């Protein structure tokens, strides 16, 4: 069931009414409703997917209890390993099996060997598997690291795993944030619900009006890049940068907004990443739930292996191991996005962009909200923003292309066949609208401003604009493929 579909437009109000008017007497019944509706939502794609999420839920529920109740540290580690192995195997089988087989065949063919019969599988990738497996792994990991106590309430745990607003494309929630909210009584709050509704409308606007309007031009440019000049290819990249941003952040906004309607707060996933002044800030603003997952469960634990005190070590050995860990984390992050070497290269590019900051120690200061108290960025900030966007945009070629060869050819053609573009310029209207609106709301990505008369003008206009574009829109969300 897509967020931008008529089915969801019927599903959401029905669940909302049942949740607050019929099932609101007890937490258990509310959570049962959430669980049922989440499974209905997920099963709408393919009911066969339900068995996997149910299995993942049961395994991690039991393992969470085992980890917590075990006294022996090696038993704790064993149970944790089972959880990780199980979830990674699930992911590996459905998402990466054919990729690894094909890559292995390509590798040994480099040495002159030919494989006659390649055994690959014809499996459907279950929607959202990359998201919910990471979510359940974080549950086991947090229990292991004593950040969380497991719950014995299976219904609540299952509701946490399958919570429909964020099930198929994130944000990847942490149990320490979401589970306590599932376990306690929710109270309806007017402001929270209004903020939620704003986010839903804003998310739909970004997806239907901006992303889906740019999509046909992006598709045409990437499909026909060999026949187009470099100027148009740059335009294609710019449009894709905003298409994927609006598509994904739009989904996240709808997810967060929907959760708010049910009295639940889930984490922000985007904070205006294209206003970032360097790549470190960018990764603090783009797909935050995933970047923090990798930071907390891969990057920091690996760093603690080499330096477990809190003092920053500036020795060459530390820097060297730090670089390896950084590259590894970004490569794994790239691979998470898809079973294609293009995603790995995309991750590698970001690693290369990040390394100078790490080596020269400029990655350790936190950057606050974008231009607090100022109307416009300074010249230096503007240059930094432009450069960061430029390099991020270049990396998107690998993300969007079908193969490394295509990505390489695309980039080469930008240089060797550059000419000023004389077509495909109308999409900049959407880019301008998006940047303007992002700029206006840059201090609060959750749109929790005070409710004023402006709502009664802006919201209807946005609703009508969405409806105006809705009939032309038939694009699925990009991140569903991950």
């Amino acid at each position, binding site marked *: 069931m897509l967020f931008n579909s*008529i089915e969801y437009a019927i599903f959401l109000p029905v669940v909302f009414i049942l949740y607050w008017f019929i099932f609101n007497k007890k937490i258990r019944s509310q959570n049962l409703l959430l669980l049922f509706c989440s499974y209905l939502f997920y099963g709408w794609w393919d009911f066969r997917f339900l068995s996997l999420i149910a299995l993942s839920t049961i395994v991690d529920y039991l393992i969470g209890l085992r980890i917590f109740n075990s006294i022996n540290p090696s038993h704790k580690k064993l149970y944790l390993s089972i959880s990780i192995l199980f979830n990674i195997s699930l992911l590996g089988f459905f998402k990466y099996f054919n990729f690894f087989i094909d890559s292995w065949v390509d590798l040994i063919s480099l040495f002159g060997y030919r494989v006659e019969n390649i055994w690959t599988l014809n499996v459907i990738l279950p929607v959202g598997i990359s998201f919910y497996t990471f979510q359940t792994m974080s549950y086991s990991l947090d229990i292991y690291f004593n950040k969380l106590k497991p719950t014995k309430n299976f219904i609540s745990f299952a509701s946490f795993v399958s919570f429909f607003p964020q099930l198929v494309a994130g944000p990847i929630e942490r149990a320490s944030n979401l589970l306590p909210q599932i376990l306690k009584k929710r109270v309806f709050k007017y402001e929270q619900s209004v903020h939620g509704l704003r986010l839903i*409308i804003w998310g739909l606007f970004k997806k239907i009006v901006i992303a889906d309007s740019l999509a046909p031009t992006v598709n045409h440019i990437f499909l026909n890049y060999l026949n187009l000049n470099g100027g148009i290819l740059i335009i294609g990249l710019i449009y894709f940068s905003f298409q994927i941003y609006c598509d994904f952040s739009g989904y996240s906004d709808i997810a967060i907004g929907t959760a708010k309607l049910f009295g639940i707060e889930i984490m922000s996933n985007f904070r205006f990443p294209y206003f970032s002044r360097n790549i470190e800030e960018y990764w603090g603003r783009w797909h935050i739930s995933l970047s923090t997952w990798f930071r907390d469960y891969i990057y920091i634990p690996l760093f603690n292996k080499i330096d477990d005190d809190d003092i920053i070590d500036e020795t060459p050995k530390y820097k060297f191991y730090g670089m390896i860990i950084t590259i590894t984390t970004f490569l794994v992050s790239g691979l998470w996005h898809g079973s294609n070497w293009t995603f790995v290269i995309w991750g590698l590019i970001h690693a290369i962009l990040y390394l100078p900051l790490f080596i020269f120690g400029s990655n350790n200061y936190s950057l606050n909200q974008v231009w607090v108290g100022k109307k416009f960025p300074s010249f230096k900030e503007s240059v930094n923003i432009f450069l960061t966007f430029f390099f991020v945009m270049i990396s998107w070629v690998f993300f969007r292309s079908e193969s490394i060869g295509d990505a390489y050819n695309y980039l080469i053609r930008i240089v060797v066949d550059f000419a000023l573009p004389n077509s495909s310029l109308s999409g900049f209207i959407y880019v301008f609208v998006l940047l303007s609106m992002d700029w206006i709301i840059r201090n609060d990505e959750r749109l929790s401003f005070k409710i004023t008369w402006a709502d009664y003008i802006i*919201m209807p206009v946005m609703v009508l604009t969405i409806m105006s574009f*809705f*009939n032309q829109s038939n694009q699925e969300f990009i991140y569903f493929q991950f």
Partner: protein
Amino acid sequence: MINFIRYLIFTVFSPISFLVMTNTIIDQRGYINKNHIKSFEKSLRNEGSQSVYYNLPERKLFRIRINNFSEYSSNNNVIIGGSKVLLVGASSGHKVFNAGVSNFTFEDLRIISKRFIDLKIEIDTLYINIDAVLFNEKTNLDQWKNFSDRLRPSYIKRLFSIDYLIENLTFPKYRNWDGNDIDYVKFKDGSIRYHARDRNLKHSNIILDQMKNNLAEISLDKNLFKEIRGILNNLNANHNVLVLSPYNPLVYDKLIFKYPKINLIEEEVYLLEDEKTEIIGSFNPEKYNLSKEYFYDQVHLNKEGIKILYQIK
């Protein structure tokens, strides 16, 4: 909760409700309200050709027109097909009852021919345009469903559409044609003439991309050809003419390279020729020396091109 519901009503439900109510009440295309298309048909039949300023619901119009067949047709010649035949008639100098509809599929052919059979209409010369798209039964073209009065999800979706609101609020919808050379015209015989701005389109790549879904999965299913013969037999016209409308030479070579089955369809169609059934035309414009000047765009012959095609033996 009451404050939130009030907020919801004013910010979300009100604009949607206004939109849906307005569209439902005016409903020019007869999704809910059939009166407008009935009025249009009456004007067409009694007043003659109409300048049209909105998207005519062609299939609903056909259903009403065919009930008054004798008032439309002076010689019982009928032409059936897609947008390529919609231009055949008054503007090209042919006297026919034009039963053409855009985005014509095999299902349209079945429904339209059945209507003629059910009404026992006697046809003198029957022209059927055979397009390659007819042989893609997996096409996503589903406008044939508009023949039905059943409330479809796509109708309900249109009621939520701003575009439809603008169409509904734009006046006039149509008026008696005064003979001008600009307007989109629906002639009394059912044929059309494009608006002046649409008579010279040039984007060949876009057309090929659009055709991908309709031409990529053409089937050479023999049963479909048998079915065409069955339809011809059931319609029992005095003379049948199957028309293969050519593509613009600017795109023909690219099209054949991408969709080579098109030529195989042409060969199969020629096998349908018999003493009562004649085949004219070809998908290949070169066979009849039709240069790009005879086309409005990549697929539609202009008036002069139609005159040449329909006179060729």
